[in-house]
């Protein structure tokens, strides 16, 4: 057993070194590929688009593999059942903060939003705390953070995470204050929730496998969006004139933030598809707050989610939930536009 672990450590260390060598040479490779191999002329639109594409695609995919694996290992420690146990019986304010933080690390898929909601509420997790979890879980995810980090650096990624947590905490807290329990479909409270849960004990081998499965699942699912997104981004990078976006997505246009959120809600895309486009928009003069608001609306609020939630929440509560989160995103958008 010990030699096996040792082998794994050596293997991973070698992997990281090779990963780093390739990663740090990508920019040079993209330049060589575009200007030496394809013999394109410097300064042309097409050359600039090709260089962008050849650099960004492997970069983002490599970051994805590394981070999704790491996050997969972390997630193997947090099951929804354990999260529920931590949250039940917590007072509201502390609960909101904890729920938002746990939303980041607990494995979550929007198709389990309903069973999760029912499980939390019937276990005595306050409604507002449950909402904090439901806001943060989809909005702050490793794919969004990797892409933000890869394209804008750690500051923007950290800001996104901080702001996402803030919205989840505050919006959940407000929803809790509104005491809207009566707008939950009555059958939710009649549901008998069993205690029968597979108590699988994981060893390190299992956790590594869990991480590898996460890499396979997520990368297989998003790679096509990454490439498409970067391709569109490259096109904009190469062809759209500088400051083209400034007139209608810049700081000057006060209506751009609410409009971005309105446009974002019906759009349903994962972070992988949206961020490369966002990058291109930013480069051409769109304001950071507007773009972040758009992104949060696309990832955090979606029509399919509303339809799923409608199964357990009466329309008034669905609207209130979306309204409060949307308002939070709009405020954040304005704030960013003012500060940066």
């Amino acid at each position: 057993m010990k030699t096996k672990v040792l082998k794994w450590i050596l293997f991973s260390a070698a992997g990281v070194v090779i990963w780093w060598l390739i990663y740090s040479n990508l920019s040079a490779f993209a330049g060589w590929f575009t200007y030496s191999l394809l013999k394109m002329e410097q300064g042309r639109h097409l050359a600039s688009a090709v260089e962008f594409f050849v650099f960004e695609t492997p970069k983002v995919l490599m970051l994805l593999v590394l981070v999704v694996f790491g996050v997969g290992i972390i997630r193997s420690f947090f099951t929804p059942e354990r999260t529920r146990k931590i949250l039940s019986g917590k007072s509201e304010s502390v609960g909101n903060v904890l729920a938002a933080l746990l939303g980041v690390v607990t494995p979550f898929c929007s198709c389990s939003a309903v069973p999760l909601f029912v499980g939390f509420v019937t276990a005595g997790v306050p409604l507002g705390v449950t909402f904090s979890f439901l806001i943060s879980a989809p909005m702050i995810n490793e794919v969004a953070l990797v892409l933000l980090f890869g394209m804008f650096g750690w500051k923007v990624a950290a800001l996104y995470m901080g702001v996402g947590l803030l919205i989840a905490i505050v919006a959940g807290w407000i929803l809790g204050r509104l005491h809207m329990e009566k707008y939950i479909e009555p059958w939710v409270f009649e549901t008998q929730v069993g205690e029968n849960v597979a108590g699988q004990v994981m060893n390190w081998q299992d956790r590594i496998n869990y991480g590898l499965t996460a890499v396979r699942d997520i990368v297989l699912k998003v790679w096509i969006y990454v490439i498409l997104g970067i391709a569109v981004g490259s096109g904009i990078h190469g062809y759209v004139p500088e400051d083209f976006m400034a007139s209608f997505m810049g700081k000057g246009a006060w209506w751009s933030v609410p409009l971005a959120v309105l446009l974002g809600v019906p759009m349903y895309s994962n972070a992988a598809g949206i961020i490369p486009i966002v990058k291109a928009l930013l480069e051409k003069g769109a304001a950071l707050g507007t773009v972040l608001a758009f992104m949060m609306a696309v990832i955090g609020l979606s029509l399919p989610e509303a339809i799923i939630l409608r199964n357990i929440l009466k329309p008034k509560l669905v609207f209130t939930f979306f309204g409060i989160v949307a308002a939070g995103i709009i405020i954040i958008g304005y704030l960013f536009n003012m500060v940066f």
Partner: protein
Amino acid sequence: MRKIQILGTGCPKCKKLAECAEAAAKELGIEYEIEKVTKISDIMKFGVMSTPGLVVDGQVKVAGKVPTVEQLKEMLK
């Protein structure tokens, strides 16, 4: 006779789990019946919050992921 229940509201992963469980049972050559539990209140009775879930003879074996056919064979034995 093994009773296999698949818990899930119809997401792609639930269908995949049903297929894999069926394949595993066939490979083992055991007698089985398979049932899909799609109503949320019924799923909740098993205490499962992340779908898909696998229940064998009333016992929850898996929640929130699709194991490999090999692993499923272990659970069905």
